[in-house]
């Protein structure tokens, strides 16, 4: 039994060693990255290309989730959680709400684009921009080593309440103002109340 087990162990070890020797963990990690990147980019393209705005919104949510996964991939699990909650949850719901409130008769063509010439121009701008950014990205230092910074949530919390306490407070105030503003905008103020 032990022999068998040790054999199996040996085999597995051998396979693992083999796999490690041919760089399989990197491959798997790369595969996971590519998968998530593909989800993100393709959903993003869907957002832009779908004709129905509801589909666009779904695609947007998918893209958000892809990005959230990428955060977790980078060991930023708190950031990923925030992404899922805020984007995947709140923002997505808000946008769907907005679509519902401003709905139009023909939902199938509710996400119109501009004319071909316009699209061509926009595509050129976007493509050139992308190209430039790619060049810049490629020129960045090629680093694959992750930095080890300890517990993420603790680190963020420390920073947030020490060095960045003022922006934190300002952000809180901003959220409050945005809330009030959104309510006033949506509700509307009649001339008589002023």
């Amino acid at each position, binding site marked *: 039994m032990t022999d068998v087990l040790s054999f199996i162990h040996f085999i597995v070890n051998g396979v693992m060693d083999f796999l490690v020797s041919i760089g399989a963990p990197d491959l798997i990690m790369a595969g996971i990255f590519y998968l998530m990147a593909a989800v993100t980019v393709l959903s993003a393209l869907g957002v832009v290309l779908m004709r129905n705005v509801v589909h666009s919104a779904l695609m947007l949510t998918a893209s958000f989730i892809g990005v959230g996964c990428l955060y977790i991939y980078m060991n930023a699990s708190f950031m990923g959680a925030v992404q899922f909650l805020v984007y995947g949850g709140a923002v997505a719901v808000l946008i769907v709400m907005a679509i519902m409130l401003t709905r139009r008769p023909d939902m199938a063509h509710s996400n119109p684009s501009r004319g071909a010439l316009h699209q061509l*121009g*926009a595509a050129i*701008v976007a493509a*050139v*921009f992308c190209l*430039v*950014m790619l*060049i*810049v*990205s*490629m*020129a*960045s*230092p*090629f680093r694959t080593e992750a930095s080890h910074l300890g517990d993420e949530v603790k680190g963020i919390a420390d920073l947030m309440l020490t060095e960045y306490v003022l922006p934190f407070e300002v952000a809180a105030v901003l959220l409050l103002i945005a809330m009030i503003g959104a309510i006033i905008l949506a509700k509307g103020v009649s001339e008589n109340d002023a």
Partner: protein
Amino acid sequence: MDFALTHAYLIPLLPALAFVVILAFTRLDKKKSAAIAISMMSVSFVLALLTAGAVLTDHLVMSATYIAKAVWVTIGGIPISMGMLVDPLTAMMLFVVTTVSLLVQIYSIGYMAHDPGAGRFFAFLSLFSASMLGLVISVSFIQMYAFWELVGLCSYLLIGFYYYKDSAREAAKKAFITTRIGDFGMLLGIIACQVAFGTVDFMELRSIVPQYVWSSGTSFLTIVGILLFIGPIGKSGQFPLHVWLPDAMEGPTPVSALIHAATMVVAGVYLVGRAYFIFSQLPIVMEIIAWVGGFTAIFAASIAITQRPFKKILAYSTISQLGYMMLALGVGSLTASMFHLMTHAFFKALLFLCAGAVIEAMNDEADIFKMGGLRHRMPTTFACMTIGVLAISGIPPFAGFFSKDMILAAAREVSMPLYIIATITAFMTAFYMARLLFVAFLGDVKDDCPAEETNAFMRWPLVVLAALSVVSGAAGHFLDFGEWIHYGPYHEEAIDPVIAGVSIVLTLIAYGLAYEIYVKKRWSAMEISHRLGFIYTLSYNKYYVDEFYALVRGAFIDGLAAVCYWLDVHVVQAILDGLAHVVSLVSEILSIAQNGQVQRYVAVFYCGVIVLALYGIYYAVRVLGILGGAF
């Protein structure tokens, strides 16, 4: 007597004071205004007499003058002085100007009795005299120019005194602008003097100029002299700038008397006399002066023969006499010119004041052919007028004889043609003056003639002037006018019997001719004018000089002005507007980026970002040398 000399500045200052006081306080009160003006003028007159006396007793002569001056303003290191220069010439002018001014002002009390603006009139009259007196005692060209301009201003104000009449308004404008053209030349001359010699002071120039001529010749000075002479051409009504003088009759008659006799027009002659030390060095300029004067004399006389309005005839006669004075200056006789200036001042003032009396008596009817037989209605005026006519025609022993004779003699010495011109002019003068006298005063009284003898204020100045017209010539001749006022070495001038005889005979012939035509009516004046046809029309229309000027003005002033304006609006402004359009066109193009839609803004923004990023890459790679680390 020193008092009179040191306080000669009071002579122009007092009438100026009268002007200020009247204008500020008593403008609306006729009597007070007249009283102020006349009292100030009387004091000036007394002071002028005292000054003349001082000149005689102190034996101030042309080469030894009394000067007092103070710096008026220093312009960038050049002091410009105002002051007084008293020599016999000044004294004579002061006497003449104050006398005539005073008499004219007294006369004006009567003449302006019914005019509501009389206060203003006396103010202007005082300023006029003050300016002229200031001009007379000037020590420098600049001072003279300043008062010269003031004289022009006063003539403008006084000729246009009846501002509600269009004709007066236009005449005033014409006087100012025409003399202004002369002033332009004169100013150029003065500035050229200042620039060349560093001074415009008469006494300093007097010592500099001969040296300058000796060392550098006369070519530059000739130009200066011609420029300076343009001023007198304008002011003294010489051809071709004489056109304003006849029109100046639009002013009240006392003004005409003042302008034509004592102030304004003689300023030009006086200037040439004052600056004689320059002109006499320049033969070419002297020639020009003589010929301009001679031509003006005969030209104006030929116009006067055919004119009908009383004052127009006198106006052309003034131009003609001024031509005489210029002629005298041109042929080198300062004495003759100044002598004639003095006698002319008296008899021309007399003639004008008579004209004023007559025209007022005729209820503003100026045409002599509508008068007639006035000697019955206005005997005093007639007597004075006769004396004036005799004086101007040069009948001995009246004033004009002596001065005119002196001019003829001087001309004879220098140039035969000029002498002939002067003699013909004398003949014509006698003729048209006789015509004026005969037509207006002899013959029968017209039925509707409203004329009556004038009041005392107007009558007595006539009498005084008549007396002066009788005696001034003889007095000047026998008291040796020339000993006092002369340029260069003095030599006594006796009356040349031939010249005097010829002129007297011609004058008598002219009288006879006029008598035959206009009193006896032996030949019809109409027929003669028809016979002469073309020449008559030419003369009657003043040789169309005015029309010619109107043409020139239309083409070169108004026409050019319209062209310039057109250029300004359609070229200069159009270019500017065009530039503005280019700018707005460019902005149209640029504003494609800003069509009001956020997306367009975003697109442009990202184009900008791309450019910046590319520059950033270029900067990083080329300048900083940072190369990519991905590989």
